[in-house]
């Protein structure tokens, strides 16, 4: 109750005395439209260029800037320049898929095993290995690519340049995804479920198989999706470790042809295909993630999104 007997406390910085405050200029519950507007501006700036580029992959003409009508010739129509028919474009798509698939298939199991093992094997060696892993997360890709190139050409020459070297390098580069994501999930799961399984009769391996892995499945899945997308996108390591033009995936092909070479919209088409592949994988992953966590979800539907993004 506003009492006249109460003297307002003299305000120290920032703490407003209750009775001498001027009426608020604006509704304290109003929405922060300035922040929201800024966010939308960012989103537009972020997405619109991509949308335009996708649009232009369907351009009838050869320009990446002037719209000349709708056509799918860059994808399937033209005999010479379309992705379907041009052999180097064609091979690039396949090579990307091969790289993505192989890397994911190798990287995820290794990474998951690494995460579980390091978490339980509490010694200094384990922490040391963990350190190395985090290093691989922050190092500029170029440095690793250069080092790998030298390794493969000077020392371990049985790893041939081209797909084998690329996969080896990509696995190392992406190892941190499953390792870190699964490790985080492992920490939040805690030990009690495995202890319960052991209490009920499971051996340690049995407990991992029957209890831990199912509970880790969402994280494993999320990291697999991330590894795949990251590999599809990658070109620093791939370029450095590539051999002939035949083994170029889409990312490298675009990179090398940007300043001339293949006509513009063909690159757009290629990039759009890359986009589609990533998106399809992302959507599959998202759906699968939600299905896998259907027994655990609390309120708020954002866990699937952040989980899938590896946050």
């Amino acid at each position, binding site marked *: 109750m506003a009492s006249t007997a109460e003297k307002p406390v003299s305000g120290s910085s*920032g703490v*407003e005395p*209750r009775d001498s405050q001027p009426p608020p200029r604006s509704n304290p519950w109003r929405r*922060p439209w300035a*922040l*929201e507007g*800024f*966010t939308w501006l960012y*989103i537009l700036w*972020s*997405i619109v*260029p*991509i949308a335009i*580029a996708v649009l232009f992959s369907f351009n009838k003409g050869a320009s*990446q*800037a002037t719209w000349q009508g709708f056509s799918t010739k860059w994808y399937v129509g033209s005999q010479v320049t379309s992705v379907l028919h041009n052999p180097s474009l064609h091979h690039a798509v396949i090579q990307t898929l091969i790289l993505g698939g192989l890397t994911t298939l190798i990287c995820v199991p*290794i990474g998951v*095993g*690494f995460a*579980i*093992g*390091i978490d339980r*094997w*509490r010694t200094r060696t384990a*922490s040391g290995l963990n*350190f*190395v*892993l*985090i*290093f691989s997360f*922050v*190092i*500029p890709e*170029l*440095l690793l690519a*250069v*080092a790998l*190139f*030298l*390794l493969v050409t*000077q*020392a371990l020459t049985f790893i041939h340049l081209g797909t084998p070297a690329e996969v080896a*390098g990509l*696995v*190392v580069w992406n190892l941190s995804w499953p390792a870190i994501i699964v*490790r*985080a999930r492992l920490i939040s799961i805690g030990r009690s479920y495995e202890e319960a399984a*052991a209490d009920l009769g499971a051996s340690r391996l049995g407990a991992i198989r029957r209890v831990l892995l199912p509970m880790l499945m969402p994280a494993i899945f999320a990291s697999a999706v991330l590894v795949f997308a990251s590999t599809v996108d990658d*070109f620093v390591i791939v370029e450095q470790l590539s051999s002939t033009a035949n083994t170029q995936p889409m*990312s490298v092909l675009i*990179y090398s042809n*940007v300043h001339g070479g293949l006509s513009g919209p063909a690159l757009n088409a290629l*990039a759009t295909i890359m*986009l589609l592949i*990533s998106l399809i994988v*992302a959507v599959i992953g998202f759906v699968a993630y939600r299905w896998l966590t259907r027994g655990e979800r609390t309120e708020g539907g*954002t866990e699937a*999104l*952040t989980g899938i993004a590896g*946050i």
Partner: protein
Amino acid sequence: MGRRQGSGRRNRWLWIGLAAPGAVWLLVLFVAPFYVMLSVAGGGINEFFQTVVPVWNPIHWSSFNFSAVWHDIVGPGAFIGSPALRTIGYTAIATVISLAIAYPVAYFVSRYAGKRKSLFLILLIAPFWVSYMMRMLAWIDLLQQGGFFNSALSFFGLPGNTDWLGGKSVTVIMGLVYGYIPYLILVLYAFLDRIDQSLIEAARDLGLSKWRTFWSVTIPLSKPALVAGTFITVLPMLGDYFTNQLLSGAPGTSMIGNAIEGQLDSPGETGQGAVLALMLLVVLLIPMIYYVVSTARTSREMA
């Protein structure tokens, strides 16, 4: 089944076995390559083939390549100095701009988005899935001589014939920001989302205005977010070479990554490329170690 060794910690072999493939892969394909890089840097050249001759024994490492690079940096005809400085400059500017954009966006989505949080998250995560190539390609299309950007400028009466892709720092910096900001936003979001709302409510309850709460409570609480975000932006950006390559291609905007790559590909200068790469690595080592140590510490605290 015979008697086991006992519960818990005594029997380690299961864990070691699980971690082994990953550990081996890391050691062979992450740690070893840098030793090779050292050996190449400290090695010599096969004069005839202009190929690299690595020297494996540290005792026999020569300073041949190192002195060549030193001359490239400080001697007459030095050409490493400007890319190095430029790299630092670009990275600093791009990081500041990125933080200035990313923080408000992450702040908004984590605190004010309410029911539309999922929608915003999808829109923020989307660039993640769009490949880097596509994002750069999009801007190349737009910034071409006859592209949309110039058309829009001339529509508004401004000069519309600038060659944005011909070697402009502005373009490269914008490209760096565009390329790295999605990671930054997501990392900031992840941290900001975890800030306990009741701390902010407590500050308001105690009498602080919205602005004061922001400066005295939210910003300090955001410190780990900002630190983490800065690290994962600055460290990879310092090794960037492709943004410049795609959006400019001119030597006037080259970064140190371009120098490394250039030397590596030139026959006879591969060793020097290795030295440059090593120097970049050494420069980055201290911040990287700091980041690794603090990450390991916080993850242990959360356990």
